[in-house]
């Protein structure tokens, strides 16, 4: 889930490294270790691999992301 708490928000947009989840650079890697990541890309990748036909991925991404964001 995206961090929306004041200064904590910098972690989803920090300059250091090549991205929060793909950072491999020394201490910058600590961000990827604690970052919350979406499982949606992985689910869709598996779905696409076992489907002869695959479409409408943007709409499904929205639906799945909405589900992922309901965390009460």
């Amino acid at each position: 889930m995206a961090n929306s708490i004041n200064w904590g928000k910098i972690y989803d947009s920090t300059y250091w490294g090549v991205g929060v989840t793909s950072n491999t650079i020394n201490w910058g890697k600590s961000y990827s270790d604690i970052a919350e990541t979406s499982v949606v890309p992985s689910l869709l990748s598996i779905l696409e691999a076992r489907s002869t036909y695959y479409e409408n991925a943007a709409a499904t991404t929205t639906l799945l992301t909405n589900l992922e964001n309901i965390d009460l």
Partner: protein
Amino acid sequence: MANLLEKASIVLTPTGYSSGAIHNVKPNSSPFGDLTKAGGTVATRVNSSGLIETATNNIPRIDYASGSGNILVEPASTNLLKYSEDFTARSGVGSLNNVTVTSNATTDPTGGNNGSLVTLSANAYANKNITMTANETTYSIYLKSPTVAGTYPLNWFDGSHHRQLVNVTTEWQRIQITFTPNAGSSVSRFVYFGDNRGGLGETLSSVYVWGGQVENKEYASSYIPTTSTPITRSAESYLDGGDVSLINSPSGVLFVERQCFDSGVNDRIQITATGRNENISVSIYGTSLGANYLRIKNSTSNFFRLFGGLKTNMEKLAVKWDGTSVKLFREGVLVDSGTLSGGFTSNQLTEIHLTTGEGFNGRLKQLIVFKEALSDAEIIALTS
């Protein structure tokens, strides 16, 4: 704490499919619990580019006619209108009076070049003969103005003329007229793709036409091309999804976002016992009176409750059962609750069907199963 995507055991959206199956997004490992597609001859759909295209036999259809992608499930239907893309005069099929038809005049809704230009002079009519019964009937036809938006006169005839103006724009639109012809059998019956004899004050005398269809339905189903004879698209069904490992019988949630087509029949989406056994089942269904209903059947009781709303609207509906407690949610609101005598025992519910018995026909945007009784707040968020 887990989010609803993590908690869901089955998630079906209109995205991945293969011949004979529509694939679940979740689970992502076997058993996948995919629904199997059966029946259905060659049929058409509106693809993501907005073009009509043919889906071959046994291939699920994701249809975008409503503006977004949905799994399309349709009953059998017959296009009674012959030569559905040819509007020239043909003996015994249709006639023209003071009408000019230019075939292959523009790009048609398939992306081909088969749109015909129909131009009406004074006292003009253009029709096709139809053998119509006294059942509810829908006449549909694609129209597009070659110039500006305006009104254009259509008509249907069952011994009396029923002329009416329809709005036509400079984009292809499927015009639909639903009616019930009289019961007489001896009169000639026609639908008209132009008739200015009524003096209705139309603003357009020329339109592009394509893809006529007449069927015994209260709505226009997906387009069925014809030539010399009426063509029937057979019913399709989606069966045998789910798995005992993906459904928790004593407590769970079934959520659907769907729209039914026909207000006059029952449309069930359900979880059943093994063998499509509806005597043990949780069913979200649209009734033959047009309402959204819940039916739960176990070994001791039948539980019926109303969700509210209209089944022909695209709506989010969810049912939570937890032991003997049942709650119904629609569009973000807890609408009703009750007691299911006896509840379910472990492993009673094992299968998901869009179509068994009184099967679902309509558009399905999402179907989700949870193996636990979510909180009311979670389901309100889910259905909002």
